[in-house]
């Protein structure tokens, strides 16, 4: 299973997901470098993501939107705060208005994505921190309603992984 550890820190409103991938660090980094690959993994299949701007560089702002099955768009942005290629980057993830302008009234999460080599590939550690319980609640309300679908996603991922020729 790719997810090897999950730590939920209620006090810091932080979720830390550790995953192991059977690909070298450079390959995993390339996924985040390339908006076309990134959008394949960021949103759930029913809410595909489209990255409009994306450059993994400190000070850069990425913008994206997710499209609901009904065609409604939910926009967001990443303010990239630090990049240590290819092992770590940090960014603020927030909501944006329809024209991709950050919405200051909506919560922002602080994120760190870190990648380390292992004998079999890469260990990725994803850390997301929310400023308040209300912020976390809002984020979950607004388009991250993926919960129930995840089991299906996991099976899909597993099948795609095991169906490949060895």
């Amino acid at each position, binding site marked *: 299973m*790719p*997810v090897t550890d*999950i730590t*939920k820190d*209620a*006090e810091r*409103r932080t*979720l830390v*997901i550790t*995953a192991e*991938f*059977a*690909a070298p660090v450079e*390959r*995993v980094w390339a*996924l985040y470098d390339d908006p076309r*690959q990134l959008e*394949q*993994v*960021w949103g*759930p299949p029913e809410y595909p993501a489209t990255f409009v701007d994306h450059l993994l560089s400190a000070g850069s702002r990425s913008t994206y939107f997710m499209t609901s099955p009904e065609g409604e768009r939910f926009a967001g942005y990443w303010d990239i705060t630090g990049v240590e290629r290819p092992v770590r980057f940090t960014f603020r993830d927030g909501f944006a208005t329809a024209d991709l302008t950050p919405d200051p009234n909506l919560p922002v999460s602080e994120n760190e994505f870190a990648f380390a080599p292992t004998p079999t590939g890469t260990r*990725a550690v*994803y850390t*997301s921190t929310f400023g*308040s*319980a209300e912020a*976390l*609640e809002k*984020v*979950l309300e607004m388009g*991250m*309603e*993926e*919960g*129930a*679908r*995840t089991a299906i*996603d*996991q099976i*899909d*991922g*597993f099948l*795609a*992984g095991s169906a*490949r020729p060895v």
Partner: protein
Amino acid sequence: MFHALSDRTRRDILRRVLAGEHSVTALAARYQMSFAAVQKHVAVLERAGLLTKRRSGREQLASGDVQAVRSVASMLDELEAVWRGRVARIDALLT
């Protein structure tokens, strides 16, 4: 709400009152701290909406709000689910 759950004693108090109504006096007797300190923890849990109090004579009776506690846990669970979905997609894309 998260602050209310961040302290070990508070989580312990919450576990007890979720199992059933307890008087604050009975709760205080369980811990190596003053009655006032335990009362303070109870007050934090009450403000966070995780615990409710009612008066019965001279006693204050506390009980846990199962619904509210579930909602904190379920928020982090939902976020975990989002991430599990992402990791599965990354894995599928990489392999």
